[in-house]
């Protein structure tokens, strides 16, 4: 259930710095943002999204432009460009308009690139 409750800016700063923070449930970002927390759920962003290297997301991630530095288990869908940085881990699926997977990134799954998303 979505509460829609806005997080206090101080709390938000802590969550974006996010070492040790765990979120159980889905996360929605209304603007561009950075996820540093461990999320047991899906992450949905309306704009650009960075999944930082300390982030671990058990669900799926969607957004416009997505830069993956951390770990995503259940797939990633970008309506724009997607970057998988070295040391990032992505499983299950990757869908995007344009894609760059760097050497050292770990991806295994279905690739759907350039199709209408």
């Amino acid at each position: 259930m979505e509460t829609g409750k806005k997080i206090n800016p101080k709390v938000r700063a802590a969550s974006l710095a996010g070492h040790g923070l765990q979120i159980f449930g889905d996360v929605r970002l209304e603007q561009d943002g950075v996820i540093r927390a461990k999320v047991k759920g899906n992450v949905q962003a309306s704009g650009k999204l960075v999944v930082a290297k300390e982030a671990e997301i058990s669900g799926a991630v969607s957004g416009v432009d997505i830069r993956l530095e951390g770990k995503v288990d259940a797939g990633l869908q970008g309506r724009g460009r997607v970057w998988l940085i070295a040391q990032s881990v992505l499983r299950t699926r990757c869908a995007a308009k344009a894609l760059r997977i760097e050497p050292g990134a770990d991806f295994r799954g279905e690739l759907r690139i350039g199709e209408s998303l």
Partner: protein
Amino acid sequence: MSELAQKIDVSCPECGQTQRESENFISTVCRSCGAYFKSSHAPMNARKKVKRTGIKKRELVCADCGAVQMVAEEAQSSSCLECGRHLELGHRVIEGEHLGNLVLEGELTIGPKGNFGGSKARAAKIVLQGRASGFLEAVEWLRVEGQASLRSGASGEILEVRPGASLESRDTLLFRSGQIDGELRCGTAQFSGPLKVGPAGKIIAEQIVFSELTVEEGGRIQSQGEVRIAAEPVVAPEIPETKGEITST
């Protein structure tokens, strides 16, 4: 009309007899005593220099034993200095049906109506416009320029599918890198290095394996994918870190 050389008087160093010679003379014989003498006016380096240009050579690697030797650029064949194998260096164009294996150190072109029907063809460079029933090994590159098909797969250094071209392969493709600007349909394609799909490129495969992948906007892939070989990381374009808002459920 060409200008005549001026005449000068020269004296024989043996008998002192004077005679007239061309001012450009280099050596002569005394008309009195028959002595041979050289002109004191002639420059010391008057001898015409014959410019010897070295034969341009290139490196040749034996397809069997890998021994390296240098051969003339224009050579059409050679023998390996190590194993004695005959090396055909020229180019070959297949316009019709070709049966039998081929080993070329040059370029092999399989034309739009050509079909390589041997079991294996090996060449430094292969241009594929038609069909190949046998396996193709391209030491440097395999370039697909037409509506091409492969029955037994291919391997090599670089796979290029040019814009407007298509390649359908029933067997595995094994290359070090790939540049796909046309259409590629295959079972499994493995690239131990980078794979690039251009804006007009399209890959439909059961599985593609690569160490890095770039798909430009407009390029398409439908496949299972896997990163298998790690290499040095490169810097990716930054997405600016901006303010975010989190709502939780």
